[in-house]
């Protein structure tokens, strides 16, 4: 079982949550969140670099932050279970990817987006030739793209054609509480090996037994592994 925690960091290393990559809301100290995840059994950290950073002109700054060798000490030295973190980039900027690898990140992934195929394929190709295919992964954001089998088959075919190391299915939520089991079963049928990672919002409420050999990607969003539930979702802060 491989569990991956996802963090969106501000330039100041604050953990933030965004709504469609806008309106960042502070959601806690990233070091404590990492520790909680580590104690929960998470083995890897994943940093999201998003439109928010680009929009606020801080995309490069984040690269500098993650490019700082201290970040690995900051996260890895004090949290014994963690491996060197990976990082997802929404838009491939090869220069930034190099910077991430230079500071010890072992993989860089790209979120799949229709209309951006050429750009992503080129980035994957460049990185694959330099760092090997295991250093790249492709992310399918289920909540954004949809749960249609045709789309999924197409996505899996594309990923295989491009030769990425791993696939991650992110944000597979049923009523924002737990993994959508039916969808996961559909994925299992489509998958040709067990290296597909399943992701969903809502903390660590995975259902190991039901989903057999599939691996999980847990997208933990708000402070620790706590998520807002109920009809009144009140955001923190006065």
């Amino acid at each position: 079982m491989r569990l991956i925690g996802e963090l969106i960091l501000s330039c100041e290393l604050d953990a933030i949550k965004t709504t469609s990559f806008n309106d960042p809301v502070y959601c806690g100290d990233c070091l404590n969140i990492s520790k909680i995840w580590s104690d929960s059994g998470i083995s890897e950290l994943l940093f999201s670099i998003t439109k928010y950073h680009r929009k606020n002109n801080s995309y490069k700054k984040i690269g500098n932050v993650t490019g700082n060798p201290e970040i690995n000490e900051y996260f890895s030295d004090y949290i014994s279970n963690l491996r060197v973190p990976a990082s997802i980039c929404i838009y491939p900027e090869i220069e930034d990817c190099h910077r991430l690898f230079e500071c010890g990140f072992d993989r860089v992934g790209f979120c799949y987006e229709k209309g951006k195929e050429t750009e992503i394929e080129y980035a994957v190709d460049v990185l694959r030739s330099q760092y090997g295919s295991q250093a790249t992964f492709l992310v399918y954001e289920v909540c954004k793209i949809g749960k249609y089998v045709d789309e999924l088959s197409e996505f899996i075919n594309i990923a295989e054609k491009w030769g990425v190391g791993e696939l991650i299915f992110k944000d597979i939520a049923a009523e924002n509480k737990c993994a959508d089991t039916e969808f996961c079963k559909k994925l299992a049928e489509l998958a040709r090996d067990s290296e597909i990672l399943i992701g969903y919002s809502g903390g660590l409420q995975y259902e190991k037994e039901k989903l057999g050999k599939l691996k999980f990607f847990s997208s933990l969003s708000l402070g620790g592994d706590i998520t807002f539930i109920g009809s009144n979702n009140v955001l923190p802060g006065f």
Partner: protein
Amino acid sequence: MKKAINSHFCNVCLMDHTAANFQAYEDIGCNYCLPVLMNKSGSSKHEDLEKILNNLHETPGEYKAVVGVSGGVDSSYVAHLLDQSGIKVLLVHMDNGWDSHLATSNIKKIVNGTRHDFVSYVLYWPELRDMQKSFMLADVVDIELLYDHAAAAILYYYAKKFKIKTIIDGVNQQTEGIKIPDNWRWYKYDGVNIRDISRRVTHVNYPYFGTIDRIKAKIKGIKRISLLNHISFQKNDALKKLEDRYKYQRYAGKHEESTFTKFYQDIILPNKFGVDKRKLHLSDLILNREIDRDQAVNAIKSVKTLEYFLDTDCFILNKLNLSKNEFRNYITRPIKKHSDFRNEYATVNFVKKIVRR
């Protein structure tokens, strides 16, 4: 008839001369445990509880009360009791950046297992870290004043926001009956003291709630209820129920839902201030007949030394951005009193006098 004796230790509980104004009495306890023992004579708690629950049922609005949850057994049990009574409340958690994995996991179990709604208020860690370091630089005993004060402020904030008139807490006489000695703590609503101690920090997000705010809230009709004082609360029974129903996991010690509180109680208090809070917690359990004195004496024997901590756990110092030497220096520096800084002591006394009249 109580007869004062010249002893450094109580023969009933674990309290001793490290507590301010400690006085042992022959055979019957000390000035800390005796008031609790005298207070335990059977009262009509259940009638009170019924009245409170009926009042809550009749309260208009979706949420009948605000309940603070830390992930600890007391607050979790309050949430459970209210759910069992069919009363929907808003559970409020303060994330101060020190929640342990177990605490977040237990909160989630309680939230998922009850019908209550939940909100987590996240304090801004960089500001809080600087305030906490200011408290350490000031060498005052009650560093947790920062968190206890903010927790109260947040409960009142949500009560106001959702127009809720009742705040319910997990405070109880049974497991927290003994008064915390004056030299181990400071007045929790003292916003002036907090501001003065951390005056070098730019305050932007920290939620203040001083004595005057508390009076204003009272005038507006917001009341606090300690629900567990109205039942025969047994910690072990409560834990058993939570474990069975929610798969709640117990902590090794009291208040260990926070990494910092554990560190504060295990390392800072004993090494810098000569205070062992376990004496207080275990004494409460003795008085509540959940353990006997011999068991408590055995439980208190193990002590974590400063050097052991420095060799094994750097997470806390790293998070506070403190070096080992800076921390050693802090531990050995002379202590100061909260009253050495500006405070609300005079205001509180004035209010008390008026209330007495």
